[in-house]
């Protein structure tokens, strides 16, 4: 269909992006059997990816009152759909094993796949929403979906994690909504009542004349509300358990995508606030929360015994870095933030792919019971090593570039801010390396049965990360630079 829409879209790509998951979700809810559903799931995500990519190559649909496509969210949508696709591939092989050992019953399988599509829909909606109310609804929908999927194993810990996530999430929901209402209140006197006062593209035009005090309070609530989803300390409490107890594909999606979506929302409102001269500067708040999350997570990494929970904390750490970068602002830091976000999504999901298979082989998530992987399962083991190095910002992998830019631009502008940043990175690296040493090296421990795993998603992500660390294609760079300019 994309061939037709060379300049005048008949069916605009956004609605396709949103429609495919809905249709697929309803189908998957009813269709039985693993073989078919898994492949349908992959197919649907793949089609969504195609539609998303078409946004780059063809004329964009004009943004209306509800939906919006601009440079900023196209990046997110593409990333979202891509990782959604690879994760569905990984999930196919992962779920097969889960069915084998009977952790998932067919009925729950149906539920799982349907939920997966709903989640994709919700996230894409949140990313393409032009209406801040709609964005709120979408993000909450995504949250509720993930809550259900986290609890899907219905073990004691899983339900507990889901419950924790649920309660903290709902409070977050409430705070974010209050913030949204306040934004409307600030807009209403200027732009009059009605839907227009919630349309982001119109808001950004008039925001300069809004009441700064209202905007400030609104931003505080939005930062806390959506920050809960981003997993910034001290609002992070749900995140580690949700990652640790849910199915690994969901952990991958959570770390790789949902956190980004929430951060995207925060960014949108940061842009609003930045456009109003008299309002409080959002930068310092974000920088503080970012640094706090980074340092906190860095220290929390040390005492971890559960491999998935450890990487969940590393997600908190990296969300902290990204928030810090966007808080610093400026072309370099914003560029670095965008790059870091992309790289972190790819890397962290790759790590969860390998961790998922490892946990399945060893039958445990306890770090203490996994050792010497590079001996017994070289492909998985070295994959994990690569992933850890990538996440730790080792060259020539992608995150090195972003961290290079963040640190250097910060140190040149605010030397004192860079010191805790560097310290946190070093501490976190110490913890990650310590665990990785024991997991990947030493005398093998635990089951050595060969893995029936699909290495394609894992190494595809790692290859992308490696490639990005060495060479960023100029169009992408221009794109990022433009977006960085938008973010101010």
């Amino acid at each position, binding site marked *: 269909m994309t061939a037709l829409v060379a300049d005048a879209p008949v069916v605009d790509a956004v609605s396709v992006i949103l429609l495919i998951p809905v249709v697929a979700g309803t189908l998957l809810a009813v269709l039985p059997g693993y073989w078919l559903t898994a492949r349908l799931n992959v197919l649907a995500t793949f089609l969504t990816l195609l539609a998303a990519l078409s946004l780059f190559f063809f004329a964009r649909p004009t943004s209306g009152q509800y939906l919006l496509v601009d440079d900023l969210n196209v990046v997110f949508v593409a990333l979202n759909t891509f990782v959604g696709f690879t994760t569905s591939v990984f999930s196919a092989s992962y779920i097969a094993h889960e069915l084998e050992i009977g952790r998932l019953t067919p009925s729950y399988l149906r539920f799982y796949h349907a939920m997966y599509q709903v989640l994709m829909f919700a996230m894409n909606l949140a990313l393409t929403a032009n209406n801040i109310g709609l964005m709120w609804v979408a993000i909450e929908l995504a949250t509720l979906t993930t809550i259900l999927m986290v609890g899907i194993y219905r073990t004691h*810990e899983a339900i507990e994690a889901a419950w924790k996530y649920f*309660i903290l999430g709902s409070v977050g929901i409430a705070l974010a909504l209050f913030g949204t209402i306040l934004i409307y209140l600030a807009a209403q006197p200027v732009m009059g009542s009605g839907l227009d006062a919630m349309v982001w593209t119109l808001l950004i035009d008039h925001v300069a004349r809004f009441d700064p005090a209202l905007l400030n309070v609104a931003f505080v609530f939005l930062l806390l509300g959506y920050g809960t989803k981003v997993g910034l300390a001290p609002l992070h409490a749900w995140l580690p358990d949700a990652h640790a107890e849910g199915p690994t594909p969901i952990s991958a999606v959570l770390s790789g995508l949902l956190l980004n979506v929430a951060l995207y929302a925060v960014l949108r409102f940061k842009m609003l606030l930045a456009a109003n001269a008299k309002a409080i500067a959002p930068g310092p708040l974000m920088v503080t929360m970012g640094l706090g999350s980074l340092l906190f997570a860095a220290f929390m990494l040390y005492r971890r*015994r559960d491999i998935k929970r450890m990487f969940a904390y590393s997600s908190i750490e990296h969300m902290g870095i990204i928030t810090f970068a966007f808080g610093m602002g400026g072309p370099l830091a914003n560029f670095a933030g965008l790059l870091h976000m992309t790289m972190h999504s790819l890397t962290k999901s790759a790590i969860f792919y390998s961790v998922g298979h490892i946990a399945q082989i060893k039958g445990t998530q306890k770090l203490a019971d996994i050792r010497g992987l590079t001996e017994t399962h070289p492909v998985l083991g070295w994959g994990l090593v690569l992933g850890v190095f990538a996440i730790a910002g080792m060259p020539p992998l992608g995150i090195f570039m972003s961290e290079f830019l963040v640190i250097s631009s910060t140190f040149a502008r605010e030397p004192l801010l860079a010191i805790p940043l560097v310290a946190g990175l070093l501490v976190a690296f110490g913890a990650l390396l310590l665990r990785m040493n024991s997991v990947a090296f030493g005398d093998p421990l635990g089951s050595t049965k060969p893995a029936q795993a699909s290495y394609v998603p894992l190494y595809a992500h790692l290859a992308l990360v490696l490639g990005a660390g060495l060479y960023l294609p100029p169009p992408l760079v221009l794109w990022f630079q433009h977006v960085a300019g938008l973010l101010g």
Partner: protein
Amino acid sequence: MGSLDFDIAHLFAGGLVLVSFMMLYQDRLYALLNVFALHAFVLAFSVGWQAYIQDAPHLFITTALAIVFKGIIIPVALHRIIQRLGIHREIETVVGIGPTMLFGIGLVALSMAVMLRVTAEADRLAREDVALALSVVLLGLLMMVTRRNAVSQVVGFMSLENGLILAATGAKGMPLVVEMSVAFSILIAFIVIGIFLFRIRERFDTVDIQALDRFRGEQR
């Protein structure tokens, strides 16, 4: 709009804050539920009044929702749950009632201090209303963090959410208000069902360190 309209709306909003304080004051579950029902009714009146003066008929749906769902169904359901789980005794508060009240007053002062910086050309009603709504929200949160009992925490959450509805309706011509109130009602239903399903008796969470050590393999 005339000052009478404003005064009445203001009256309801202030009433809501007052009822929140009453809820903070309660230390028996049944009484708490009754007060919460009152909270819902006051909210309903306020919303209805807004619907009338903004002549926005769709807000009446919210009113009805508030009365039927929050004012009647939920309290009754919680009554049942309390009976089933046999926890109809005093609410264990984390800090005493007195300090909580004082802190609540502080919160109201804070929300005023924050909100009254809003320049006056922002519509006066909205300004006052939002200030009060903010204090209701904060009081709800305060209740959630000062009560150990699951039911009372749900009640706290619901009062928080009432504050949200108050703010939303106070904002003139705010779209999607009804949808949001519906969504929230569903959310609350989820929570209540969850409490009932997971047999969460005393607390929201059964987190205890031994359980963690055993299940999660985390070390303290």
